[in-house]
């Protein structure tokens, strides 16, 4: 695998504030890396350093082997970047805006037309090409920003919150787009939407207070959840005690909790010891004993919980508030 982005002890201080504090990270071709973290964790700052917008206080960033500080123009040629909020020149139309970007990217003639057509088609903005960007809806603006980033088919794609402000259909579409393009690129997306990480990323890192706290595939991260492989079941209230007794006797079961919510049914949450799958054994047991179960579902464990767990370090009340609804 070719290493497209390599960060070594990358650090950025704003006065006394350590926005990014010695991050080591590498991203290979074919990877879609999800950059997770509460607001203010240093995600955007890190991206701004990789794209050459901010100069690191310390450490270095290599893009396709090129040092971003020493040869910024060459590094920037290899990067497609969607800045946070997808800023575009509001008084231009998408057509003239993409034309400008294509020119700066060194595309001309038929090549330029083809690149623009392809990007327009990919993000589906064909209908608004001649409207000033400032009159477009948020979703369209974001897609114009995306078109700009993918226009020159860059080997490295860095997208800062690419689906922020999009409706569910548009989100789905953007995720598909990232999937399609991921094969021959190194893609980094920042987000605080955790389902997005599970939907598109092959790898996720969690960053908080400028430090890298976790690195793994989304599945690996989910596995850290106490609810990983837990089972939810609904049973009639009159048999609930017998069911709990039987389940607790089963090997591999960590705990059985009764959901306290009022209902005609009792809901039980059965966690597994060490996160191993217990659903098959549990199903067999229930059938054996002849307990009637009205609902039975396996829990994968929410990335949310893992995220909160990891990012909630000392004196982080301010950041965990944001993580709560993310």
């Amino acid at each position, binding site marked *: 695998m070719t290493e497209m982005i390599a960060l070594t002890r990358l650090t950025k201080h704003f006065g006394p504030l350590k926005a990014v504090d010695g991050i080591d990270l590498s991203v290979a071709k074919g990877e879609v890396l999800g950059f997770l973290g509460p607001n203010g964790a240093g995600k955007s700052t890190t991206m701004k350093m990789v794209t050459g917008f901010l100069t690191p206080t310390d450490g270095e960033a290599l893009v396709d082997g090129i040092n971003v500080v020493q040869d910024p*123009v060459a590094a920037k040629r290899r990067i497609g970047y969607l*800045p946070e909020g997808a800023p575009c020149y509001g008084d231009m139309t998408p057509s003239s805006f993409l034309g400008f970007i294509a020119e*700066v990217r060194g595309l001309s003639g038929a090549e330029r037309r083809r690149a623009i057509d392809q990007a327009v088609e990919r993000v589906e903005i064909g209908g608004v090409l001649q409207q000033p960007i400032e009159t477009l809806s948020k979703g369209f603006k974001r897609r114009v920003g995306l078109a700009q980033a993918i226009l020159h088919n860059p080997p490295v794609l860095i997208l800062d919150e690419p689906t922020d402000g999009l409706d569910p259909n548009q989100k789905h579409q953007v995720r598909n787009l990232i999937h399609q393009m991921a094969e021959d690129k190194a893609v980094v997306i920042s987000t605080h939407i955790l389902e997005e990480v599970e939907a598109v990323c092959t790898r996720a890192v969690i960053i908080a207070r400028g430090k890298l706290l976790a690195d793994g595939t989304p599945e690996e991260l989910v596995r850290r959840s106490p609810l990983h492989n837990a089972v939810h079941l609904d049973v009639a209230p009159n048999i609930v005690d017998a069911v709990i007794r039987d389940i607790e006797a089963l090997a591999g079961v960590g705990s059985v909790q009764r959901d306290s919510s009022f209902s005609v049914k009792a809901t039980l949450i059965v966690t597994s010891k060490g996160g191993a799958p217990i659903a098959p054994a549990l199903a067999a047991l229930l059938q054996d004993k002849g307990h009637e179960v009205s609902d039975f579902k396996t829990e994968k464990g929410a990335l949310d919980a893992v995220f909160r767990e990891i990012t909630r370090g000392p004196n982080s009340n301010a950041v965990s508030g944001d993580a709560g609804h993310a």
Partner: protein
Amino acid sequence: MRNVAIIAKREFKAYFATPLALVFIVIFLALTGAFAFYVGGFFTRGSADLTSFFAYHPWLFLLLVPAIGMRLWAEERKSGTIELLMTLPVSTVDAVIGKFLAAWAFCGLALVLTFPMWVTVNVLGTPDNGVILASYLGSFVMAGAFLSISSCISALTKNQVIAFIIAATVCFLFTMSGAQLVLNFFQGWAPEVLVDALRSMSFLTHFDAVTRGVIDLKDVVFFGSLIVMWLFLNVIAVELNKGR
């Protein structure tokens, strides 16, 4: 160079995307005409030249050029597009020069559109067209100097109004530095060298020399080096402020 041209082209078109270009050109033409005819006494002077027209250019530029330059960087920073621009494969120097050239070309266009003045004076008499050409060039170069100041100051703030006011003030100081008003403040305590240096910084002195039809190398170097210096400061200002 290619990047400079691409950026200049986009920036130049941006002036025409809003009513700014139209408003500016109309006001510039109205004011240059009004000053030349009513204040400068174009007809009553009874001489076939454009002295009364060019004499008011420094004062008009003082207010109008910062209005062209104020948006160059302040707007990019306010809207966040500076992050887009500075992550394209373009050096900061290219971007600064490209934007400056676009705005300067716009000033040039406004100046060219004053051609009815030139037609009028040629219909009424036989002026020295060499002097007029030199004056136009001098006026254009002076506009460039005002513009480089405005562009640099625009990079220091996100607020266009602040950029305008500060730029107009700095331009005023440069215009007036030869006048007693400013020199009196320094005479008496500052060394003679400094007072002389200040006097030599005056736009008015250098522009007057050019409008008399004498294109002296020293005046060209003065305005040229001033432009280079302010654009250099502009690059530094952009580099220092872009992330804020």
